[in-house]
């Protein structure tokens, strides 16, 4: 190839210009008009909404979307166009592209632990009092669910949509056969009970050590219950003894107590659900109401209950943080800062967070409402009671843009320890070294966050 240099340069400039205009063009709709009675008139407009695909319920999700679109059209005259992402990575890519180019969906559905990262990009609307009124007022939401909407009460971007608190499920027959009256409330008691149930191919606990999320949730819960907030101001506290103790307990189920299936070093959460569903485990750890459809159709249908996970940390007799039964988990909705139809976006959020819609959503998909009244109504349901309790007893993970890195570090300790786990012994000094590594990487990330 031998272009003359000037034409080559021109070609590059043209291409770059093309690429840049490609990024900048597109959106062109004007602001939505709001009439005096607070009704948003969106006739002829289209609201773009990006949400995660619910792989368990593809048909129902489509149906729900078209129903809600019809209702929204009746209310505002505007159409809703739904787009879905298949995985967290997919979601991230979409968000990054939209953040950089300043165009894309108007409303995003985000997982709670991802909200701090999204907030850090400053690409989403931090709601003013006025904005909160447009989505029906802050009071309509479950107070606990607002815990991960922003760094403090004045700066909140995430509007709670659904809660998915973590609980454990237990097999009533197995517990009764082992002479256990009620599920454990401390981690030590849990291990004791599990030992009694472990025999003849049945294990006390089912959990997946190769899951991409579960391991750090255990460590977080046990450490927080022992009074370690993990992030304390600008300081990361993974080198605190409570964290090591948490890992030792979590790994100890396999190496010391021998109350989990040795194959679970290769399991993800769904493998654990399958083991529990086939009646081969007393407890299923770290599950949500979304396991309900699977369990209802399984061998253990009618034989299981949900319960709060223990809140008394390992080796202690009382909890320093009773509220940390689960991480605050679920979905938040955020409105893009670049959106030209924010009022329309708020009107949409108002619609789908109303009591009726939230109850309807729970019925179809199992996720708990973020709407306070709707949640109260469900508390009467005996099966859901422990889960609604957990929703009120959920504690938010630290609200910092560095959380992604910290979470990765916590998970990485488990990933690198799995070979030791499989060999039956996790060496104390090796564990310490891994924690130290995660501590220094996470601290560096926190330092950047404080500057950012």
């Amino acid at each position, binding site marked *: *190839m031998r*272009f003359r240099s000037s034409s080559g340069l021109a*070609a*590059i400039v043209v*291409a*770059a210009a*093309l*690429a840049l205009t490609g990024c900048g063009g597109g959106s062109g709709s004007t602001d939505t008009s709001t009439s005096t009675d607070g009704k948003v008139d969106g006739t002829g407009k289209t609201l773009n909404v990006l949400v995660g695909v619910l792989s368990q319920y593809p048909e129902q999700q489509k149906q729900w979307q078209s129903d809600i679109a019809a209702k929204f059209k009746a209310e505002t005259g505007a159409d809703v166009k739904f787009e879905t992402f298949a995985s967290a*990575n997919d979601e*991230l*890519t979409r968000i*990054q592209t939209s*953040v*950089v180019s300043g165009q894309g969906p108007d409303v995003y559905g985000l997982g709670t632990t991802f909200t701090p*990262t999204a907030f*850090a*990009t*400053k*690409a989403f609307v931090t709601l003013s009092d006025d904005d909160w009124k447009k989505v029906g007022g802050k009071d309509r939401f479950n107070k606990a669910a607002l815990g991960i909407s922003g760094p403090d009460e004045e700066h909140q971007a995430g509007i709670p949509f659904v809660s998915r608190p973590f609980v454990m499920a237990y097999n009533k027959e197995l517990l009764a056969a082992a002479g256990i009256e009620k599920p454990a409330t401390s981690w030590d008691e849990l291990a004791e009970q599990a030992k009694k149930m472990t025999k003849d191919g049945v294990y006390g606990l089912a959990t997946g050590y*190769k899951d*991409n999320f579960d391991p750090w949730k255990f460590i977080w819960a046990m450490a927080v219950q022992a009074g370690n907030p993990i992030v304390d101001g600008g300081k990361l506290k993974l080198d605190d003894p409570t964290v090591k103790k948490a890992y030792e307990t979590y790994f100890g189920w396999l190496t010391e107590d021998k109350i989990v299936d*040795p*194959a679970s*070093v*290769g399991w993800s959460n769904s493998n654990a659900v399958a083991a529990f569903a086939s009646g081969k485990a007393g407890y299923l750890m770290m599950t949500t109401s979304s396991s309900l459809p699977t369990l209802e159709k399984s061998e253990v249908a009618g034989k299981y209950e949900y319960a709060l996970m223990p809140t008394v940390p390992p080796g202690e007799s009382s909890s320093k943080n009773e509220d940390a039964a689960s991480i605050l988990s679920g979905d938040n909705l955020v409105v893009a800062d670049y959106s030209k139809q924010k009022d329309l976006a708020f009107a949409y959020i108002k619609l789908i967070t109303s009591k009726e819609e939230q109850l309807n959503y729970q019925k179809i998909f199992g996720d708990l409402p973020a709407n306070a009244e709707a949640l109260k109504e469900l508390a009467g349901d005996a099966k859901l009671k422990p889960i609604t309790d957990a929703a009120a007893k959920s504690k938010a993970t630290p609200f910092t*843009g560095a959380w*992604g*890195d910290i979470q*990765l570090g916590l*998970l*990485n300790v488990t*990933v*690198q320890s*799995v*070979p030791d786990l*499989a060999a039956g012994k996790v060496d104390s000094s090796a564990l310490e070294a891994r924690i130290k590594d995660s501590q220094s990487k996470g601290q560096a*990330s926190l330092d*950047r*966050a404080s*500057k*950012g």
Partner: protein
Amino acid sequence: MSTDASNEVRLAAESAASRAAHSAAEVAGQEPGGPKSPRRKGLSERNRPLWMLIPGGALMIIIIVVPLLLGIYMSTLNLDQYTLRKWISSPFIGVENFVEALTSSPLLHATWLSVSYSLLAMAVTLPLGIAAAVATQNAFKGRAVIRSIFLIPYVLPSFVVATVWRTMFQPDGIVDKALGAVGIEAGLWLNGPQTFWTLVLVQIWASWPFIYLLALSGLQSVDHEVHEASALDGALWWNKLRYVIFPYLKGPLALAFLIGMLHHINNFTLPYVLFGVPAPADVEVLPILTYVTSFQSFRFGLSAAMAFVSLVLIAIPLFVYLRAVKLDDAESPGAKK
């Protein structure tokens, strides 16, 4: 170069034949003519349709050159989730990202892993591919079926290959059960030190048909007369293979080695799907490391620096190798030099 000259002769002669006015001798020998005589160019120089490069060239610029330049620019910025939104104006920090990548990140370890795993996989796939090509060279009953079967790993998407292998390598999975039946306790495949060998093994399985394909194409280019001649000279199969056939394969195999290595080093899907993120330390290869830095830690600047460093690290041996095998001399693939 002699081969070049002879090629020129051939091409030029063909063209000359159609234009009866010129003699072949006049065309072939001389270097492009003196200043006064109207120079008679070879076909390869005459009317070169350079404009045909425009569509491909434009695409290359948009898809490769522009992102490359942007990437290099990004590597000098402190670009992370906090500055992403107005990324053009994020703070310029010069070479700091490069310093961090080289001194306090696992980049060098990742490079070492990438290169060694690629070389190992290549060292095994080369003889496998050649053997398979030689074995299916002569016609026999069912050859077409065998050849089709050989290509299965190559046509399966990487994602599928990795998913299937991951399922087989589960603790207590089918591989463990099979090895257990003959009394071997294999240990963990998807975690710990053995993961490196898992990656090599799966890569071999997935990529040997590529070598096989190129070796096959090399074998097809061996003229029938050559087989006859070596048979007349009484060469036995090994000698014939070693001294007659293999030289024909040199070009295609050099190309296969090069493309294969690059493919292995750049392979993201296989380790990502097999081991997930965060990957065990023994398979944190370059693409995985770059991905995690970008999309888990949101250090886009640092990650761009890593990508650039790895590009340079790969480009150096690539350049040396290209020179050595003279692949840029595209006129004479597979010919003896």
